[in-house]
């Protein structure tokens, strides 16, 4: 796993656990960096663990060299995770593991905290590196910042929605008919 993808996986795991329990897994401070969420504490932590809990190597990944993280040869400790922590981490690793770094970044950018950061950047007219990524958001704020930018014109959206609603009527009628049988 490359460092960029590792950062995104950890961010998503932290956010998953925070959304479910109110606390993050790592306790790290997440900031917006060039490719999205980044925990600056990750770099020194990996240096301390290199050669023991993890093995860090620079390897060709696609057309460029990247720092790749693998399980290390001589771990001095094992993670002691609570059941819900392990469940959140496993869920995110299963989701992010098969993804390319680009897709992992896209997933991270689509989270509510990053959508808020992107909204602030749009209003400021520039990318704002090193700003904190806030996890504590109320529902009204989330609903506001996740609203997609319109692409199609209003008439096309109305026609699309008409088709979608008609189709829902069928789903309900069919389900009710089955239930009545």
């Amino acid at each position: 796993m490359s460092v960029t993808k590792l950062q995104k996986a950890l961010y998503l795991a932290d956010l998953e656990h925070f959304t479910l329990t109110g606390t993050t897994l790592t306790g790290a401070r997440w900031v917006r960096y060039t490719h999205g969420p980044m925990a600056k504490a990750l770099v020194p932590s990996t240096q301390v663990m290199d050669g023991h809990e993890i093995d860090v190597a620079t390897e060709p990944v696609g057309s460029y060299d990247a720092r790749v993280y693998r399980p290390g040869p001589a771990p001095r400790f094992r993670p002691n995770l609570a059941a819900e922590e392990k469940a959140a981490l496993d869920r995110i690793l299963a989701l992010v593991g098969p993804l390319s770094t680009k897709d992992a970044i896209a997933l991270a950018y689509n989270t509510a905290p990053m959508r808020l950061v992107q909204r602030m950047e749009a209003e400021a007219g520039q990318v704002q590196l090193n700003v904190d990524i806030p996890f504590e958001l109320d529902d009204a704020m989330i609903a506001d910042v996740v609203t997609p930018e319109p692409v199609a014109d209003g008439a096309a959206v109305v026609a699309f929605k008409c088709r979608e609603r008609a189709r829902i009527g069928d789903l309900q009628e069919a389900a009710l008919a089955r239930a009545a049988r």
Partner: protein
Amino acid sequence: MIEPGAVFEIPAALADPPQRARDPNAPVREHRWVLNVSTKADSRDRFQETVITVLLSAQTEYAHRHDVLVRRPDGGIDRDSIAQTDVLFMVLKAELTPDRWRGTVMADTLRQVRAKLAETLGISPGT
């Protein structure tokens, strides 16, 4: 697998025939994908026969203010999709069989959908 945020692929047999009768121009689809937004209690309660779902669509170009973007492969979807919180309906749990389960979205994604749903329904502060 019926839990909050679970995504199911509903077969055409549930959706097709009456729809064609009403709208001859409707696109032909073999399946529709839905996302469960019901509570954990209602999802698990054996005496609660239905759950509330929102309809997903991969036609993200029609996204508007009621929709939430869900990125592939979150929830097991194979294309980026919109969760349409203004196309909300109940579905019998009996129809949501394990073979139709495609995955469960991240907690943050479900929270986005529920937050947008609260806004759509007017139960969000200031709406």
